[in-house]
């Protein structure tokens, strides 16, 4: 970008001319994913309102994403904004962008440590999200007065750093309450149907009295867990029933919290991060030199504060 300002670090300067006339190539999650669809809408609208041109190269396929980033580099835009469907396959494209002098902003999941320094980042605090899930479970089980409990976790796609980061923090936090034991961690692949199927099998394997708590990594994974628990004849929530928590709040999750089925969730809703990412881009082009890495604040949501987040979480 043609700009002024003294480049302090190695953050490429966006300049101070604002967004007008700037081209942004956007390789986000595809519109066939609800989270992505909402993010894309908010993000694109906000930047276009500022006069930027957003070239939509979104996809849900990791291989296509690599190609689209390469395409974006060749388009020589003022900025590439991308999400990492597959962390490791994005290493080389990021390096190429650096060579070509095209700045890259990564949102949502963090990049591979090899290229951590080569990109700007607006990432969700996945460790906070994982920790929130553990906190919810511990709180819920303690409220029921459980001396001990067995817990299952059904995760997002295990190969993504998002899942790995969350799981690590979740396990760490659970370790602080050793009376509650995580007995199964299964890969639910961000797939509601698969998650429900796994849950059904796990309830059969351990029986209702063998599982006291469950973590579904997204609301749309936790709800099938609740449904399958009910189908297996297990009590859910209440004074003695199964405590279920999740993250990635969605409208259906908020409703389930309000109905008392779901103990809690965490934010990481697409609207918040979309706004913050767009904001980052605006600041970047205004020459405000935002910090290289920004972490979106994630919140724990339970029945106690659900009203506060109902609006924020009801977008998808």
């Amino acid at each position, binding site marked *: 970008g043609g700009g002024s300002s003294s480049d302090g670090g190695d953050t490429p300067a966006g300049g101070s001319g604002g967004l007008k006339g700037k081209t942004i190539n956007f390789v986000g999650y*595809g*519109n*066939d994913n609800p989270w992505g669809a909402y993010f894309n809408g908010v993000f694109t609208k906000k930047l276009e309102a500022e006069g930027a041109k957003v*070239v*939509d*190269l*979104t*996809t849900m*396929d*990791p*291989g*296509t994403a*690599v*190609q*689209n980033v*390469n*395409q974006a580099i*060749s*388009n020589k835009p003022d900025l590439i904004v991308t999400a990492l469907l*597959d962390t*490791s*396959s994005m*290493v*080389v494209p990021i390096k190429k962008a650096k060579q070509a002098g095209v700045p890259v902003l990564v949102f949502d999941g963090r990049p591979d440590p090899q290229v951590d320094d080569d990109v700007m980042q607006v990432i969700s605090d996945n460790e906070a999200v994982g920790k929130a899930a553990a906190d919810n479970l511990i709180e819920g089980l303690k409220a029921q007065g459980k001396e001990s409990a067995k817990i299952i976790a059904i995760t997002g796609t*295990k*190969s*993504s750093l998002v899942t790995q980061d969350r799981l690590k923090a979740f396990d760490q936090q659970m370790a602080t309450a050793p009376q509650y034991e995580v007995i199964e961690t299964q*890969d639910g*692949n961000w797939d509601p149907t698969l998650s429900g199927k796994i849950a059904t099998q796990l309830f059969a394997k351990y029986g209702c009295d063998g599982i006291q708590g469950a973590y579904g990594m997204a609301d749309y994974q936790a709800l099938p867990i609740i449904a399958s628990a009910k189908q297996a004849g297990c009590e859910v929530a209440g004074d003695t029933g199964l405590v279920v928590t999740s993250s990635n709040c969605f409208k259906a999750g908020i409703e389930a919290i309000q109905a008392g089925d779901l103990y809690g969730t965490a934010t990481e809703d697409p609207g918040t991060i979309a706004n913050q990412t767009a904001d980052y881009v605006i600041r970047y082009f205004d020459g405000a030199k935002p910090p290289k890495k920004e972490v979106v604040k994630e919140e724990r949501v339970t029945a106690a504060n659900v009203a506060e987040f109902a609006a924020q979480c009801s977008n998808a």
Partner: protein
Amino acid sequence: MRLSSLTRPESLVPLVALGTTVVAFALLPAYTDSGIASFDVYNTFQIFARLGLVALALGLTMIAGEFDLSVVGTYALGGMLAVQAGQDSWATGVLVAVGAGAAIGLVQGLVIAGLKIPSMPVTLATYIALLGLTSSLSDGLSKTYSNASVTLWVDQTVLTFFSPRSLITLGLFGVAALVLGVSRWGRELRAIGGDRRASRVAGVRVDRLVVGTFVASGVLSALGGALLSFSLGSANPDPGVQPLILAAAAALLGGVSLAGGRGTPIGLLGGMLAVALLAEVVTVAALPAYVTQLFYAALLVVIVVIDAPDLRNGLVRARTRLRPPAPTAPSTRNDTGALHA
């Protein structure tokens, strides 16, 4: 080449598909504000390279009158093996992947040819089993390929428009075209796809050819998977069903018939390039992805219609109804080739 040979489906379908997409590509500047960059061509070939070998593998089995659904399973397994066995040496990785692909093809070919089972259910089962195997090999995780020099090498720009990966893929299409064009295999492959009994009577070694086709299919798919993993620097245990559907669409757009006996590697190349060009057009024009899907749907519906026998009969009937033909001297000629025998 005579004009009449261009109007046959095996040339006409890929010509139309490729022609449409090339025009759409050439007109890009008309509906986007950017011109066509050489990189757009490069990226088209990259997209082509991603699924090209799978489409070739599937297409070859379709020409032989079979339908190898397992190609995407082999593709995933090949990619995973190449990464896991090839961390130190890419050659070992490729060898292991290709060897596994050959073994899978051999077993499937023997079962299908030996027991004379329709290939669709067998290869569907293998497809499911291979996805499971790949996933259990990697614990369901994506595996990173840490040999970055290989990753850089396979995708470096060669001759402006190509990368080693797309050149290898193009080369294999060329090899297939050459082999099938100048040797007896091409003829015999189409023969066993067209009429297996007649081929057997004529003296074609049908079973060997079927087994060989499946081995080739396994090798090509596994190699395609290996190249993709090297290029991405990681192997994904679950490619989903999209590659299978796209490869099938590419083969069909390449003029191959599901009924067998029709198609050439060059046609397949055309079909696959059409798919890649379309993807590139959609990317460059930043159209929503669902537009691509509607476009594929439209192209495939055209193919379905061209190939539907009773629809053709209906058209003949309608034409007869509207315009009773003047009595013509009958001959033994049968222009439609639709014999009732």
